[in-house]
Structures are given as structure tokens and as C-alpha cells.
């Protein structure tokens, strides 16, 4: 091959790549008379059951807010990208939101892993980021530009252990998923167990795609003096654990985490889910709340709206997105501006905000603003959630 052919070929290909690369820029070049907010969610991939309802919720409510006249007289423009649960993709997409789409704020990050990958970018760019993931590392230590809406995994452990304590159960077997969620919650539970007088007598794990957990559960069953089992994890794993648990005829109470707080868990686990307890937000039991419950209005409204629009049962994960968007909009209204730093300051001053997860009172040291009372202990009875009194 002569030099010329080679040069031509390389030039042709690189031109092609370059043209293609810059074509994407054109799509983002519309008029900017709008307030742009961004979101990177795990819409597909192993955490799609988080990202999918979050995506649907954000789109639905941004449309509603715009139909009602927008925020501070301007329309919202929502840009959503799918990270597929991959932290590296999330990071690139966050760069795109910040640099190319020039957003003023972000509501997103379905998982702790993707959130943590994006945090340094928002910190450097000084743009507020409201995360929808559970891990406590997101807000501890506090990062000035990072907030989150769901309860932390530590709070879930505390709520569960509180309930065990009340029932006089202290010897607990753990079976955790090895995904980010299960692994992180397992760590938190081990940390706080002692404070509640809980002894972990068995500590097993399973992979994110495992289909049979009977060997691990057999080992847990064989642990001396077992009184309860806790399963931190999300996705299909906990449903299989619940079924295997019933198959092995283990007679102690089974606790799941807030990671399975959606109706689909009951459907997947079937009859085996009877009697399972888990901590969750009021959203799942919206209609059972007493009328004087301060959260009732918010959760019933969100549940009705979501189910009417998408024709599927509501999950707490979509609720986290609702809370995030509403906290942001509230902050933008109070700030009276779409300047990222002004928005950040206003978010930090959020007090008395009633969301699906509970009452939010933020402060410079607390970028979540929820306490344990916002969690309800639920039990599955007759294929539905009931509130444990």
C-alpha cells in the first residue's frame, strides 16, 4: 500500500469519526429560554426497577409543572440519560449534562455506585446534585453540592433491628446480595448491630444473578439458636431468597430491606412472601394511613397520579424521584433564580417539606433531612402490605 492511499484512508475515516462526533452537538443547540435540569438514571440494566419508575415520574411531573406555568415564569427542560447502572457510563453522561447540555441542577443517580462516580464532577462544576440512591456514603461526609432523598441503608438496619428488639429477637442470620446495595447495607448492619443487642450468627452472600440460594440458607438454618433472618438486597434476589426460605421450611421471621419495597416483590415471591417484614416509606400503604397522618395527602396524590398515568403499581423508588424534583422546584422558587449556587443554598434551607419518604428538614450538616419516624415497618399479609402497629 502506498503512503498516499494510506493517508487518504486514515483522513477519510478520521473525518467520518469527527463529523459524527460533532453531529451530536447539534441536537443540544436549541434556544435556552428554559431552565435545564438533568438526570442520569439506571433505566436499563440490573437496577432498571429503580431507574424505570424514576424516569417515568420525572417526565410526568416536569410536564405537569410546565403545564401549570413552569418555575419562576420559565419552562423546565428535562434531559434524561440512561447509565445502564454502569458507573463509568454515568460519569461520561454527567460530563455531557454539565458541559454540553449546561444544566443548572441534577436529580438522578439511581444507585450508590453511579452516584459516587458522578459526585466529583458536580462538586467541581458547582452544580447541585440530588441523588436518588440509598448509600450513606453519599451524604457522610457532607459534600456542599450533593443531597439525597431516600432513607439511608443504615436507617433501614436500625429500623429492622428496632423491630427485632421489640419482638425479643437477637440472634440474626444475614444473607446479603453482593451488588452495591446489599454489600453496603450489610456493612452498615454489622456496624449498628451491637447497639441494638443483635448478634449476627450467620453471614452469607449471593451474586446479583444467582438463581438458587438454598445452600446459603441451609447454612443459616444450621446456625445455633437462630431467631431471625435479614436479607439486604434488591432485584430478583430477595424474591428467590424468600421462596427458598419457604422451601427449606425455616421457622424464624424473615426481614427484607427497603430495596424490595414495590408490589412486584410480592408478585414474584408469591405465597412465600406471607409474613415477611420490611421497612418502607408510607407510600406503599398510602390508602391505609389514618386521615390525620400529615403524609397522607402527598402519598395518595402521587400514587393516584402515577398509577393513572402508567397503569402499574407505584414503587417507593419513583417516590424518591418525586421528592427530589419537588425539593428542587421548591428551592428554585424560593431562590427566585436558576443560578446553580443559589439553588444549592436554597436546597440546603429546605425545612418542613413533606415528601413521599417523610418530612425533610435539611441543614448544612444534614443533606438528607429524614429521621427514623419517616420509615414504617410493614408486613405482608394476604398478598398486600399492612402497617405493623
Amino acid at each position, binding site marked *: 500500500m502506498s503512503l498516499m492511499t494510506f493517508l487518504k484512508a486514515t483522513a477519510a475515516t478520521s473525518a467520518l469519526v469527527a463529523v459524527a462526533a460533532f453531529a451530536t452537538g447539534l441536537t443540544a443547540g436549541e434556544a435556552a429560554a428554559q431552565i435545564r435540569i438533568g438526570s442520569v438514571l439506571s*433505566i*436499563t*440494566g*440490573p437496577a*432498571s*426497577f429503580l431507574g*424505570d419508575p424514576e424516569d417515568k415520574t420525572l417526565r410526568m411531573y416536569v410536564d405537569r409543572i410546565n403545564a401549570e406555568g413552569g418555575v419562576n415564569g420559565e419552562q423546565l427542560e428535562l434531559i434524561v440519560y440512561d447509565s445502564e447502572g454502569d458507573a463509568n457510563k454515568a460519569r461520561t453522561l454527567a460530563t455531557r449534562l454539565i458541559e454540553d447540555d449546561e444544566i443548572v441542577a441534577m436529580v438522578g443517580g439511581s444507585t450508590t455506585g453511579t452516584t459516587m462516580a458522578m459526585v466529583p464532577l458536580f462538586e467541581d462544576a458547582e452544580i447541585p446534585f440530588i441523588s436518588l440512591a440509598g448509600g450513606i456514603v453519599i451524604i457522610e461526609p457532607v459534600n456542599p453540592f450533593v443531597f439525597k432523598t431516600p432513607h439511608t441503608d443504615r436507617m433501614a438496619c436500625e429500623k429492622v433491628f428496632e423491630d427485632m428488639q421489640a419482638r425479643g429477637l437477637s440472634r440474626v442470620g444475614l444473607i446479603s446480595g*453482593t451488588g452495591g446495595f446489599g454489600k453496603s447495607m450489610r456493612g452498615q448492619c454489622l456496624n449498628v448491630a451491637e447497639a441494638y443487642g443483635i448478634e449476627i450468627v450467620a453471614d*452469607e*452472600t*449471593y*451474586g446479583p*444473578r444467582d*438463581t*438458587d440460594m*438454598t*445452600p*446459603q440458607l*441451609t*447454612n443459616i438454618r*444450621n446456625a445455633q439458636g437462630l431467631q431471625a433472618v435479614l436479607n439486604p438486597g434488591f*432485584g*430478583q434476589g430477595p*424474591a*428467590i431468597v424468600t*421462596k427458598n426460605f*419457604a*422451601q*427449606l*421450611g425455616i421457622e424464624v421471621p424473615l426481614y427484607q430491606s427497603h430495596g424490595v419495597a414495590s408490589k*412486584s416483590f410480592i*408478585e*414474584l415471591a*408469591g*405465597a*412465600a412472601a406471607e409474613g415477611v417484614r420490611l421497612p418502607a416509606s408510607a407510600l406503599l400503604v398510602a390508602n391505609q394511613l389514618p386521615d390525620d397522618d400529615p403524609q397522607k395527602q402527598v402519598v395518595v396524590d402521587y400514587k393516584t397520579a402515577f398509577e393513572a398515568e402508567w397503569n402499574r403499581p407505584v414503587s417507593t423508588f419513583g417516590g424518591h424521584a418525586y421528592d427530589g424534583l419537588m425539593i428542587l422546584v421548591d428551592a428554585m422558587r424560593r431562590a427566585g433564580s436558576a443560578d446553580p449556587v443559589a439553588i444549592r443554598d436554597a436546597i440546603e434551607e429546605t425545612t418542613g417539606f413533606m415528601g413521599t419518604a417523610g418530612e425533610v428538614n435539611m441543614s448544612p450538616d444534614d443533606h438528607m433531612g429524614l429521621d427514623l419516624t419517616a420509615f414504617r415497618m410493614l408486613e405482608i399479609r394476604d398478598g398486600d402490605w399492612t402497617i405493623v402497629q
Partner: protein
Amino acid sequence: METFLQFLFSGLTVGAVYAIVALGFTIIYNASDVINFAQGEFVMLGGMCTVFFSLWGLPLPVAAVAAVIVTSLIGVALNKLAIEPARGANVVTLIIITIGASIFLRGLAQVVFDKQFHRLPSFSGDAPIDVLGATLTPQSLWVMGGAAVIVVVLWYFFTRTTFGKSILATSHNRLAARLVGINVELVLLTSFALSAAIGALAGILVTPITLTSFDAGTMLALKGFAAAILGGMGNPLGAVVGGLLVGIAEAMGAGYLSSEYKDAVAFVIILGVLFVLPSGLFGRRGTERV
């Protein structure tokens, strides 16, 4: 003892599925020399189609049969549209075509169906059966029994029917098979249909236990491929033995060693076997042509 038995049941159930996936790899490999990485998607399609056909109103048995037929047609389409046009391409290129197909099918399932997990009801209830102190679900028996039936039927087909024998002949020498009047195109088409059909069947049998979703196939393809290699690529007996061994290794690893490293146990065994027997347990030990 009952603990061991419990681990064994777990391993055999999971292993039976790996075995069927490995058989699927074997059938297509023998007919076309292609390693079909979309094999796991056949299993996913079997489960997902059944779930959705029954949601759309078909009675469960009809939905299951329809799912097997649809998946076979997709297998045939894969051969016609992607494998045949690329005949003669490099092995690595062919692997990438099947990976492309697997990404495509996953994307298709996500658009046509949805991104949620789904289940099917167990075929004969959920009451566990007690065997010497260990418990077994009726569905596990369905999976193991189904796998056994598939193996026997395939064995009969390949060794006792003329058409089955002609497929085997093609796998040994395509040119010679053509010369003796075997319709090689038909052989290829049958192999893909058959492989997709047993994959779909496995998917239907196992969904009541494992649940399914659009991306359930990737892991199965990985484990099935590992099983086929462990047994020796191209050997149906090897595929079955390999599948069961991988399943049992995982269950025993999870039970006795460490649940975090149970997958590692299976892969370490495979690496160990390959270092000693470079063509797997039952693989052909041929010499390379120059």
C-alpha cells in the same frame, strides 16, 4: 448428610439448566462451527414469551408451546440473516456476530416486553418434597426431569433417525456430507431451530424457580459456554456432564467454602481441567491441519 443432599439438589437443578444451554451450544457448534453467544437469549425468550403470551390471554400450556415455536423461528432467522451471510468469516468475527445478535435480542425483548422481573406459576404446586431430610420443590423435579427427557430425545434423534444421523455426518465433514446428498442448508436450519427450541424449553421450565427478565440470558450463556468447554466443545455427553459439574461446583462452593467465591470455584476447576486436558473432559483430540 442432609446438608450435603440439600447442596446436591441445588447443584443438580441449576446444573440441569446449564447442561441444556451447553447442549444448545453443542448442537449449533457441530452443525456450523459457530459458538452462538445468543444461546442465553433463547432461554430468556422462552421464559419471557410464555409470561407475556399468558398475560395476553393464552392458557399457560398454549403460551408455552407458542413460546417454543416463536423462539425456534428466531433461531432460524438468526441463521438465515446473520450466520449464513457471514459463512467463511473468521471465528472471532462469527463470535462477534452472535454477540451482536444477543445484544439485539435483549434490546428487542426490552422494547416488546418490559424491563421488569417476571415469574410463572410452578407447574405442580409449591409444597416442598422431603427427601432424607433435605427438601426439593416439585419444580426442581420438573427441571431435572425435563432436562433428562431432552437429553434422551436428542440422543435418539441423533443416533437413531436418518435425519439426525445426517446432521452428525455434516458436523464431521461438510463437503463429504454434501457429496452424499445431504441437504446442508436444511441441516443448519434444523440445528438452529432445535437449539433455540431446547433453550426456550429450559427457560419455561426454570422460570418458576429463577424468575426471568430481558437480561437473564447473559449469565446463562456464560455458564453454558463454560460447561460446554469443560465437557469438551462438540461432545453432547460432555455438555451434559459439564453443565451438571458446574452447577454442583457452585452449590458446594457456596455451601462449604464461601458464598462470595462460589463462581470462582467453578472457574478454577475449569482452568485446572484445561491445564491438564486442553480439550476438556471429553473433547476431540485432533491434530491441527496445516
